[in-house]
């Protein structure tokens, strides 16, 4: 009581809020930490600790299914994020630093559409359309997955690029044009280098989003086209060994590295 009245009254303090916040952070990280710890378990179980070992990382590394799924994930994410970034860059150039023009709202709505529609709905719609095309053409390669991924990655690549462009005024480009630089050179030497951080950020976001996708991949993939997440989803139905933990830990590592790089890039911008 005495101590309480002596403490300076803070208008910001809310009793209990700090405890709940700590509980939240413990909840957010606890399960992930346990998951990572058991990836290093020497035993067969994801519940009983039997000592430290890297055997499950080795097992996962040697598993041809995991290798193929990883390779496929990287190809799809690479191709999709590249496509999405190029298209999003062009679209951003056509929709920023300009007054609203006929149809600009339509373009904006279409680009952001994948953010608004539940994944399962897009997945089912793609299943319907791609099934038709697959039957009609007899082709069932990776292009379908790449196209689907590229489409839902467009808004994720577009938003950082657009944000970057909106923060750039036209002075440098005007100066370059005044010095008789042809439009292409203005773009190549002035606009592109200035918007580069936005493009890199957009590409990284698109890559992570594609790498993480489960739902759309699950419905669009043809037989034998598992990506790492759909492979893991399939594994969860069976006896789970720490191999899944090891794969998760590796994926987690990639996400954290990319995310940290993203934050650092964004910070340098300011």
């Amino acid at each position, binding site marked *: 009581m005495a101590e309480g009245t002596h403490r300076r009254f803070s208008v910001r303090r809310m009793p209990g809020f700090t405890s709940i916040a700590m509980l939240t952070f413990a909840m957010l990280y606890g399960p992930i930490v346990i*998951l990572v710890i058991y990836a290093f378990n020497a035993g067969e179980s994801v519940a009983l600790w039997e000592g430290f070992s890297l055997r499950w990382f080795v097992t996962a590394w040697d598993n041809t299914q995991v290798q193929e799924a990883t390779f496929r994930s990287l190809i799809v994410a690479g191709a999709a994020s590249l496509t999405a970034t190029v298209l999003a860059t062009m679209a951003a150039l056509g929709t920023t630093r300009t007054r609203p023009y006929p149809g600009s709202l339509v373009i904006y709505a279409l*680009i952001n559409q994948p953010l608004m529609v539940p994944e399962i709905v897009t997945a089912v719609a793609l299943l319907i359309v791609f099934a038709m095309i697959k039957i009609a053409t007899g082709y069932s390669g990776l292009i379908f997955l790449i196209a689907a991924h590229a489409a839902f990655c467009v808004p994720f690549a577009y938003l950082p690029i657009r944000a970057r462009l909106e923060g750039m005024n036209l002075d440098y480009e005007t100066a370059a044009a005044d010095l008789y630089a042809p439009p292409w050179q203005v773009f190549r030497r002035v606009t592109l280098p200035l918007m580069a951080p936005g493009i890199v950020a957009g590409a990284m976001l698109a890559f992570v989003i594609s790498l993480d996708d489960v739902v759309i991949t699950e419905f669009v993939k043809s037989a034998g086209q598992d990506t790492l997440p759909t492979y893991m989803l399939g594994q969860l139905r069976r006896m789970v060994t720490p191999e899944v933990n090891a794969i*998760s830990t590796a994926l987690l590592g990639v996400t954290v590295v990319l995310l940290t790089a993203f934050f650092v890039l964004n910070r340098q911008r300011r």
Partner: protein
Amino acid sequence: MRRAEIRRNWLLATPALILLLAAASGPLLIAVVYSVLEPGDYSGVVWKLSGEGWFRVLFNRDIFDDTVSLADAHLTIFWRSASLSLMTTFFTLLLGFPTAYFIATRPLRQRMLWLFLVTIPFWTNLLIRTFAIMEVIRNEGIANSTLMALGLIDAPIQMLYTDASVLAGMVYVYLPLMVLPLYASLDRLDFRLVEAAYDLYASRIAVLRRVIIPLVKPGIVAGSILVFIPSLGAYVTPRVLGGGKNMMISNLIELQFGEGRNWPLGAALSITLLAFVMVALIFYVRNMAGEQRNG
């Protein structure tokens, strides 16, 4: 604006629009068409107009005598989806509000670090996070073994594959979606107003209820919508933690394209889900527009 500039803008946007029309928006329209066709024998559709797909969203037709009854199984799933999504929103708000408040009241330099800690789970693969929860609550998991070690229970409680485990999983995976917009609102909160309320002898509860919550209402609405929408369409979490019997709408939709072999019904269910999400989004946009007018 010059005509040439408009044309240039459209040309720049065209490749992206073509991709999105081919692999996002266009297929949605075809799904609408599929919802009014007849199901094929094994999969796909027969190109004949039929209202059966939509009819079956809510009703069952007896295969022998054509009597019509309500599709109880579907209603149960709709109810579960709606109630679990609302409860997810409620619990994420309950945990997320104090968390966002805590972050917003840290010194400026610490805030970025706390925010980064919220962002990491946000960008971590949803499947990995769901799997992490699964390991904690499974029969041999740490939750049960801790309770048993404490002597609170004798045998493991079945936590996995229940509605409660789906709820816990959704709260866990969608929590960052609540904290981030709440923080954005709380960050701009003018604490002089809070101080003024205390000066006028308001209690902490009164300050929270009458000053802080009304001021950050846009953030609360934004966070709630951002949690509610993906919850309603959740697929991975109920599939992994619900174990097949605690289905939500997404899993019911998947069933129609698999064992159910009723693509028109599946398409009709998808469009129903989309319609509900659109209603929630319109509500959100109007709330935001209203706030901008007032602010």
